[in-house]
């Protein structure tokens, strides 16, 4: 049953149309609204975004010392309506600002009605870990946009999902999980840790007979290549879904060649949620303007035109705990022309962010590695890291530090890396002022030189 034709779950005595539970109703209510706003013109969207950002700025000015200083420096007046010109004068927020400012970026009076505060650590696309904070409200928008993504691609929720990602157990779940199973009855979902050897992943997928596969692009590439090499076809596979890394045309073509299915990509970041989702009609992306304002800026900080590539700068519309205003993500995107689908949501033709190689182990296993940033990100003085596998036994840790590591910290880092990579490699350290991107604009936070 395609999600657009499915009847949501309902209270006992009503079968159709459904009377969903309050949480499910709030998600569907937001879908109703998003299905209106996505067709608004770019100008209409920009106007309501600026109105909403006016509220965010006022809150940030009143409750966050960092922003009070920053906004005062440009003559910000909280009583005046926010104009596009005023907004463009706000200095960009760098990842290094977040690293150095720490809790000075948090509101001392988060809006109580926005719910409980949650936090996490992310390395982002460039190996620079930061702490981030959100609220139940930001979590709600995350859920609503997850549901939008399923609705846009009209997935059959009666079909099986398989997910191969970081930190997952090898398990079978009765549903696709939240938020999809809040309003809808779904088929089961099977999960697998991405650090499973690629050939074993292929065997596992053959057993699962999944209809949808969600994984990282690099892993999808390795799976497709392995299937082609082994002559394996996943019967019933309808779509490959990817997130977390850069997707290129070659990978899309490879998925078609190996399995005869399309690839649908998601562009998101832990600290801000969904940034852009693949269009239901075309293979480019639509910015999620109802959740954040996305700017693509050239080297003079001017908006890029269609066909130009620039830096992605986002402003969160609903995070009252840690608003990120004009935050430079360190990803790049090419601005696309207006989409033929008719949506007014801005178009990103392609996105250049993170890419990660597979790690190769001496016993022949290969898998998508973790760099362990969640463990060292909050504790060690590492501003940026790139891990390079030089051989089957040696791994180099290229680090940018805010101060030299103590011997105990070096030992701790080595222990974390051994655990993350799944093998006791010899770790050699090198220290740098900055670790640049590759020529193609992608940042590779794990590079393997082992062929």
């Amino acid at each position: 049953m395609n999600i657009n034709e499915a009847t949501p779950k309902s209270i006992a005595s009503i079968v159709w149309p459904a009377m969903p539970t309050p949480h499910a109703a709030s998600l569907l209510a937001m879908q109703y609204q998003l299905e209106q706003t996505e067709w608004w013109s770019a100008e209409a969207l920009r106007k309501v975004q600026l109105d909403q950002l006016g509220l965010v700025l006022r809150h940030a000015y009143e409750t966050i010392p960092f922003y009070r200083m920053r906004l005062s420096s440009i003559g910000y007046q909280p009583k005046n309506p926010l104009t596009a010109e005023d907004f463009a004068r706000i200095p960009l927020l760098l990842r290094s600002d977040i690293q150095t400012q720490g809790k000075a970026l948090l509101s001392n009076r988060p809006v109580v009605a926005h719910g409980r505060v949650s936090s996490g650590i992310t390395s982002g696309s460039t190996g620079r870990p930061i702490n981030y904070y959100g609220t139940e409200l930001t979590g709600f928008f995350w859920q609503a946009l997850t549901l939008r993504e399923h609705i846009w691609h009209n997935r059959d929720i009666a079909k099986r999902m398989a997910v191969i990602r970081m930190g997952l157990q090898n398990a079978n779940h009765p549903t696709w999980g939240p938020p999809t199973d809040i309003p809808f009855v779904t088929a089961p979902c099977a999960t697998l840790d991405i650090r499973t050897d690629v050939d074993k992943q292929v065997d596992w997928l053959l057993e699962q007979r999944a209809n949808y596969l969600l994984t990282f692009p690099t892993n999808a590439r390795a799976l497709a290549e392995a299937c082609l090499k082994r002559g394996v076809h996943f019967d019933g596979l309808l779509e490959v879904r990817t997130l977390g890394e850069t997707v290129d045309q070659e990978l899309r073509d490879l998925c078609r060649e190996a399995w005869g299915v399309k690839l649908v990509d998601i562009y998101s970041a832990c600290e801000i949620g969904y940034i852009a989702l693949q269009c239901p009609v075309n293979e480019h992306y639509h910015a999620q303007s109802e959740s954040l304002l996305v700017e693509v800026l050239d080297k003079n900080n001017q908006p890029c035109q269609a066909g130009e590539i620039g830096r992605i700068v986002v402003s969160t519309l609903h995070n009252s705990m840690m608003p990120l205003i004009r935050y430079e993500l360190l990803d790049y995107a090419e601005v696309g022309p207006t989409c033929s689908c008719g949506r007014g949501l801005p178009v990103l033709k392609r996105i250049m962010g993170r890419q990660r190689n597979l790690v190769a182990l001496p016993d022949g296993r290969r898998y998508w590695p973790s760099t362990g940033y969640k463990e060292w990100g909050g504790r060690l003085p590492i501003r940026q890291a790139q891990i390079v596998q030089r051989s089957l036994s040696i791994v180099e840790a290229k680090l940018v530090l805010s101060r030299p590591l103590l011997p105990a910290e070096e030992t701790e880092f080595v222990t974390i890396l051994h655990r993350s990579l799944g093998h006791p490699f010899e770790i050699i350290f090198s220290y740098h002022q900055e670790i640049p991107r590759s020529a193609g604009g992608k940042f590779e936070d794990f590079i393997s030189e082992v062929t």
Partner: protein
Amino acid sequence: MTNMIRSRVPSLNWPGLPGPYGDAHLALLWQLERSQWWKADALLAYQMKQLRATLDHAVKQVSYYRTRLAGLDLTACATPEGWAELPILTRSNIQEAGPQLRSDGMPSEHGRFHEVQTSGSTGKPIRAFGSDITAFYWNVLTLRWHLWHKHDFAGKLASIRILDESIGTPPNGTPVPAWGPATDTAWVTGPSTLLNLATASVSQQAEWLQRESPDYLLTHPSNLAALVREMGPRTTALRNLREVWTISESLDANTRRFIEETWQLRVVDTYSSRECGYLAIQCPIADHYHVQSESVLVEILDDEGRPTEPGEIGRVVISTLHNYATPLLRYEIGDYAEVAPPCSCGRGLPTLRRIVGRQRNMLTLPDGQKRWPRCGYDQFMDIVPVRQLRLVQRSLQTIDAELVADHPLSDTESKALIEIVQQALGYPFEIHLVYVSNISRGSGGKFEEFLAALEPSKS
């Protein structure tokens, strides 16, 4: 024009979060946005699923159905073929069943009971009950109607309708900050203003309307036609008016044309009843109507009880999908409708070309003022055993009250009825009670519960 969803969360204006009740409205609209395009057979299949649940409830909780449906296989009943075999529920059945049609209890999520009294389209008063769920559907379908016709919620709405005595008193009416609970639960709306149709003469309405200069006007078709006749072509005083909306009575093609041509704007009509809610709403791109299949199953039947074909007129028979307070299953409401072929708009909701129901003439007071007449159904039901009533104005002083009654009224009952009618009409007319065995429809099939039979010179 961009209608903005209301937000009840601080520091969040957009996208709006309207709160649990508003969410429930929008969540249902999300479903209706999809179901309206489904094919007729898919809609019918879902209706049958819901009616199966309603039947279950009716047999367990409503003594009338317990008897009526005794021994039937409910699963077989809840199929298109089985449904057609269920007996028709007439207004007389409802009158006779009385409290036996009220559910002994409802699932808690259906909320509270509320009573509904209506004369319907045939002057035969009945009593039924609704629930919070039926009220909720009423609100959501009101929203659908606005959204179908792209109404600008920022505009000003003027309503001339029957209101409680203390509201909307002429000449000034009652200003209200928003359009009402159906719309302002989830949307931010402009102001509205109310005038009581029961007490405002046509000339008072015209004066008020020019003063208020609304964007939209809502009233009964017969009243609207009288208003347009009174005011003539639209002047600059009504320059803001974008559309007029009609409710509660039949709107025939001639009246529609007369209003649209004289005022040079579109009339949008809805077909609803108090006991069943919205039955059909005018299509966004045509003058005909779409059945509200997500709330009611509507059958149009010929004299033999068979479904009519496009172009044929038949009896309207309704089954409410979600009313667990007084389930109305295969209820013959007393209206007639012409079935139309599928609509070019692409919606799968069945199409009705026209509805032939109630129509009302205007009352003329002795001073010559014209007024939309009330008949007092909501008051006399509990006092006198009248099954059907029609008022006929014979002169500026006299009214015939034609009535079908179980037995001749006693002196006390007659006196009570006369007082109620005088009060409802707003003038102490001389009321003559005329007993009849049946009150039939007019030649066009419309039932006129108030008939103006004045000599031309006297009107």
